[in-house]
Protein backbone atom coordinates (compact mmCIF):
# COMPACT_ATOMS: atom_id res chain seq x y z
CA UNK A 1 0.00 0.00 0.00
CA UNK A 2 1.46 3.37 -0.98
CA UNK A 3 0.49 6.88 -0.01
CA UNK A 4 0.72 9.32 2.85
CA UNK A 5 0.46 8.64 6.53
CA UNK A 6 0.52 11.50 8.97
CA UNK A 7 0.73 11.96 12.65
CA UNK A 8 1.85 14.87 14.75
CA UNK A 9 5.43 13.69 15.26
CA UNK A 10 6.22 12.22 11.85
CA UNK A 11 4.96 12.28 8.31
CA UNK A 12 5.59 9.45 5.90
CA UNK A 13 5.44 8.72 2.17
CA UNK A 14 5.57 5.12 0.96
CA UNK A 15 6.70 4.55 -2.63
CA UNK A 16 6.90 1.39 -4.68
CA UNK A 17 10.27 0.70 -6.28
CA UNK A 18 9.38 2.22 -9.67
CA UNK A 19 10.89 5.46 -10.98
CA UNK A 20 7.41 6.72 -11.87
CA UNK A 21 6.64 6.82 -8.14
CA UNK A 22 9.16 9.63 -7.67
CA UNK A 23 6.59 12.04 -9.15
CA UNK A 24 4.85 11.90 -5.76
CA UNK A 25 7.83 13.47 -4.00
CA UNK A 26 7.50 17.13 -5.07
CA UNK A 27 3.80 17.20 -4.21
CA UNK A 28 4.47 15.73 -0.77
CA UNK A 29 7.40 18.06 -0.14
CA UNK A 30 5.37 21.09 -1.18
CA UNK A 31 2.68 20.09 1.29
CA UNK A 32 5.27 19.70 4.06
CA UNK A 33 6.81 23.06 3.18
CA UNK A 34 3.47 24.86 3.51
CA UNK A 35 2.64 23.27 6.85
CA UNK A 36 6.10 23.51 8.39
CA UNK A 37 7.21 26.87 6.93
CA UNK A 38 10.17 25.40 5.09
CA UNK A 39 11.97 28.22 3.21
CA UNK A 40 11.81 28.08 -0.58
CA UNK A 41 15.52 27.49 -1.10
CA UNK A 42 15.52 24.69 1.46
CA UNK A 43 12.48 23.15 -0.25
CA UNK A 44 14.49 23.16 -3.47
CA UNK A 45 17.40 21.42 -1.73
CA UNK A 46 15.05 18.82 -0.24
CA UNK A 47 13.52 18.12 -3.66
CA UNK A 48 16.98 17.80 -5.18
CA UNK A 49 18.33 15.44 -2.55
CA UNK A 50 15.28 13.23 -2.14
CA UNK A 51 14.90 12.82 -5.91
CA UNK A 52 18.54 11.80 -6.11
CA UNK A 53 18.58 9.50 -3.10
CA UNK A 54 15.29 7.75 -3.89
CA UNK A 55 16.14 7.29 -7.58
CA UNK A 56 19.46 5.75 -6.56
CA UNK A 57 17.67 3.25 -4.34
CA UNK A 58 15.25 2.30 -7.11
CA UNK A 59 17.78 2.13 -9.95
CA UNK A 60 20.85 0.77 -8.19
CA UNK A 61 19.53 -0.76 -4.99
CA UNK A 62 16.51 -2.63 -6.30
CA UNK A 63 17.70 -2.66 -9.92
CA UNK A 64 15.36 -4.66 -12.13
CA UNK A 65 13.72 -6.25 -9.15
CA UNK A 66 10.09 -5.35 -8.58
CA UNK A 67 7.97 -5.36 -5.49
CA UNK A 68 10.16 -3.36 -3.14
CA UNK A 69 9.27 -0.20 -1.33
CA UNK A 70 10.97 3.02 -0.30
CA UNK A 71 9.69 4.74 2.82
CA UNK A 72 10.44 8.44 3.25
CA UNK A 73 9.73 9.91 6.67
CA UNK A 74 9.86 13.53 7.81
CA UNK A 75 10.51 14.94 11.23
CA UNK A 76 11.99 17.95 12.94
CA UNK A 77 14.69 18.01 15.59
CA UNK A 78 14.50 20.13 18.71
CA UNK A 79 17.08 22.39 17.08
CA UNK A 80 14.71 23.01 14.18
CA UNK A 81 16.46 20.87 11.56
CA UNK A 82 14.27 19.24 8.92
CA UNK A 83 15.08 15.54 8.84
CA UNK A 84 14.19 13.01 6.18
CA UNK A 85 14.76 9.29 6.66
CA UNK A 86 14.83 7.02 3.60
CA UNK A 87 14.40 3.32 4.34
CA UNK A 88 14.47 0.47 1.88
CA UNK A 89 15.06 -3.27 1.72
CA UNK A 90 17.41 -3.14 -1.27
CA UNK A 91 21.00 -4.35 -1.38
CA UNK A 92 23.53 -2.51 0.72
CA UNK A 93 24.53 0.88 -0.73
CA UNK A 94 26.19 3.62 1.30
CA UNK A 95 26.25 6.92 -0.64
CA UNK A 96 28.67 8.37 1.91
CA UNK A 97 31.35 6.03 0.62
CA UNK A 98 31.06 7.28 -2.95
CA UNK A 99 34.27 9.06 -4.04
CA UNK A 100 34.36 12.85 -4.07
CA UNK A 101 34.18 14.42 -7.55
CA UNK A 102 37.32 15.39 -9.42
CA UNK A 103 36.42 18.50 -11.37
CA UNK A 104 39.92 18.69 -12.78
CA UNK A 105 38.88 15.96 -15.17
CA UNK A 106 36.47 16.41 -18.04
CA UNK A 107 32.89 16.45 -16.85
CA UNK A 108 31.10 13.38 -18.07
CA UNK A 109 27.45 12.67 -18.50
CA UNK A 110 26.12 11.49 -15.15
CA UNK A 111 27.83 11.04 -11.79
CA UNK A 112 26.92 14.37 -10.24
CA UNK A 113 24.24 13.04 -7.90
CA UNK A 114 26.22 12.14 -4.78
CA UNK A 115 28.18 15.42 -4.73
CA UNK A 116 24.87 17.26 -4.87
CA UNK A 117 23.63 15.22 -1.89
CA UNK A 118 26.73 16.12 0.10
CA UNK A 119 26.56 19.82 -0.70
CA UNK A 120 22.86 20.49 -0.29
CA UNK A 121 22.39 18.72 3.05
CA UNK A 122 23.69 19.83 6.42
CA UNK A 123 24.43 16.27 7.40
CA UNK A 124 24.02 12.75 6.05
CA UNK A 125 23.84 9.64 8.20
CA UNK A 126 23.82 6.13 6.83
CA UNK A 127 23.11 2.83 8.54
CA UNK A 128 22.86 -0.70 7.21
CA UNK A 129 20.51 -2.85 9.25
CA UNK A 130 19.31 -6.45 8.93
CA UNK A 131 16.19 -5.10 7.22
CA UNK A 132 17.96 -2.80 4.75
CA UNK A 133 19.39 0.67 4.18
CA UNK A 134 18.60 3.73 6.31
CA UNK A 135 19.76 7.10 5.00
CA UNK A 136 19.02 10.20 7.04
CA UNK A 137 19.25 13.67 5.48
CA UNK A 138 19.38 16.81 7.62
CA UNK A 139 18.49 20.27 6.35
CA UNK A 140 18.79 23.51 8.29
CA UNK A 141 16.51 26.44 7.62
CA UNK A 142 19.35 28.21 5.78
CA UNK A 143 20.55 26.83 2.46
CA UNK A 144 24.33 26.32 2.20
CA UNK A 145 26.32 29.05 0.53
CA UNK A 146 28.77 28.20 -2.20
Amino acid sequence: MTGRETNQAEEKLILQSRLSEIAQLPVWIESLSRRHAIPENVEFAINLCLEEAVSNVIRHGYGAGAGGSVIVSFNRTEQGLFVFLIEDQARCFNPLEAPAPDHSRTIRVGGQGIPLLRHFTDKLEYEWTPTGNRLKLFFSSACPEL
Partner: protein
Amino acid sequence: MAITTEELAGGITQVILEGRLDIENSPAVDTRMKAIAGDRNSVLVDLRKVSFLGSMGLRALVAPALAIQGRGGKLVLFGPNEMVTKVLKVSGIETMIPIHHEFQSALAALR
Protein backbone atom coordinates in the same frame (compact mmCIF):
# COMPACT_ATOMS: atom_id res chain seq x y z
CA MET B 1 7.99 20.93 -19.11
CA ALA B 2 7.66 23.22 -22.13
CA ILE B 3 10.46 23.37 -24.71
CA THR B 4 10.43 26.00 -27.42
CA THR B 5 13.09 27.21 -29.84
CA GLU B 6 13.73 30.50 -31.56
CA GLU B 7 16.22 31.19 -34.32
CA LEU B 8 18.19 34.35 -33.59
CA ALA B 9 20.45 36.39 -35.81
CA GLY B 10 23.87 34.97 -36.51
CA GLY B 11 22.75 31.37 -36.67
CA ILE B 12 22.08 31.15 -32.93
CA THR B 13 19.35 28.83 -31.69
CA GLN B 14 17.67 29.85 -28.43
CA VAL B 15 16.17 26.88 -26.57
CA ILE B 16 13.67 28.03 -23.95
CA LEU B 17 12.92 25.57 -21.15
CA GLU B 18 10.06 26.17 -18.77
CA GLY B 19 9.22 24.10 -15.69
CA ARG B 20 10.99 21.40 -13.69
CA LEU B 21 14.03 19.63 -15.13
CA ASP B 22 13.47 16.64 -12.88
CA ILE B 23 13.58 12.89 -13.37
CA GLU B 24 10.07 12.88 -14.82
CA ASN B 25 10.62 15.60 -17.44
CA SER B 26 14.28 15.04 -18.27
CA PRO B 27 13.77 12.25 -20.86
CA ALA B 28 11.68 14.51 -23.11
CA VAL B 29 14.21 17.33 -22.76
CA ASP B 30 17.03 14.90 -23.45
CA THR B 31 15.39 13.71 -26.66
CA ARG B 32 14.70 17.23 -27.89
CA MET B 33 18.17 18.52 -26.96
CA LYS B 34 19.83 15.63 -28.78
CA ALA B 35 17.89 16.51 -31.92
CA ILE B 36 18.89 20.16 -31.63
CA ALA B 37 22.50 19.28 -30.92
CA GLY B 38 22.54 17.12 -34.01
CA ASP B 39 22.48 20.00 -36.45
CA ARG B 40 23.03 23.27 -34.55
CA ASN B 41 26.42 24.72 -33.70
CA SER B 42 25.45 27.80 -31.66
CA VAL B 43 22.93 27.12 -28.93
CA LEU B 44 21.72 29.33 -26.10
CA VAL B 45 19.79 27.35 -23.48
CA ASP B 46 17.45 29.78 -21.73
CA LEU B 47 16.91 28.62 -18.14
CA ARG B 48 15.08 31.68 -16.82
CA LYS B 49 11.84 29.75 -16.41
CA VAL B 50 13.38 26.57 -15.05
CA SER B 51 12.23 26.25 -11.45
CA PHE B 52 14.12 23.04 -10.58
CA LEU B 53 17.20 21.21 -11.85
CA GLY B 54 18.09 17.71 -10.65
CA SER B 55 20.92 15.40 -11.60
CA MET B 56 18.92 13.79 -14.42
CA GLY B 57 18.29 17.26 -15.81
CA LEU B 58 22.03 17.90 -15.76
CA ARG B 59 22.50 14.97 -18.11
CA ALA B 60 20.05 16.54 -20.55
CA LEU B 61 22.27 19.62 -20.66
CA VAL B 62 25.72 18.02 -20.60
CA ALA B 63 25.19 15.49 -23.38
CA PRO B 64 24.18 17.99 -26.08
CA ALA B 65 26.89 20.39 -24.94
CA LEU B 66 29.53 17.70 -25.40
CA ALA B 67 28.13 16.83 -28.82
CA ILE B 68 28.15 20.42 -30.03
CA GLN B 69 31.55 21.23 -28.56
CA GLY B 70 32.96 18.08 -30.12
CA ARG B 71 32.13 19.53 -33.53
CA GLY B 72 33.71 22.87 -32.67
CA GLY B 73 30.40 24.52 -31.86
CA LYS B 74 29.25 26.35 -28.71
CA LEU B 75 26.48 25.99 -26.15
CA VAL B 76 25.87 28.42 -23.29
CA LEU B 77 23.41 28.48 -20.40
CA PHE B 78 21.48 31.69 -19.80
CA GLY B 79 19.60 33.07 -16.84
CA PRO B 80 19.47 30.27 -14.23
CA ASN B 81 17.95 31.31 -10.91
CA GLU B 82 19.93 31.24 -7.68
CA MET B 83 19.32 27.62 -6.76
CA VAL B 84 19.68 26.29 -10.31
CA THR B 85 22.99 28.16 -10.51
CA LYS B 86 24.13 26.47 -7.30
CA VAL B 87 23.35 23.06 -8.77
CA LEU B 88 25.33 23.90 -11.90
CA LYS B 89 28.31 25.10 -9.87
CA VAL B 90 28.36 22.25 -7.35
CA SER B 91 28.19 19.70 -10.14
CA GLY B 92 31.10 21.35 -11.92
CA ILE B 93 29.05 21.95 -15.06
CA GLU B 94 30.16 25.58 -15.27
CA THR B 95 33.72 24.42 -15.92
CA MET B 96 32.60 23.10 -19.29
CA ILE B 97 29.42 25.01 -20.14
CA PRO B 98 29.55 28.81 -19.69
CA ILE B 99 26.79 30.35 -17.62
CA HIS B 100 25.61 33.87 -18.40
CA HIS B 101 23.14 36.01 -16.49
CA GLU B 102 23.04 38.78 -19.11
CA PHE B 103 21.47 38.05 -22.49
CA GLN B 104 23.92 40.14 -24.49
CA SER B 105 26.94 38.46 -22.92
CA ALA B 106 25.41 35.07 -23.69
CA LEU B 107 24.98 36.08 -27.33
CA ALA B 108 28.49 37.49 -27.49
CA ALA B 109 29.90 34.21 -26.20
CA LEU B 110 28.32 32.41 -29.15
CA ARG B 111 29.63 34.72 -31.85
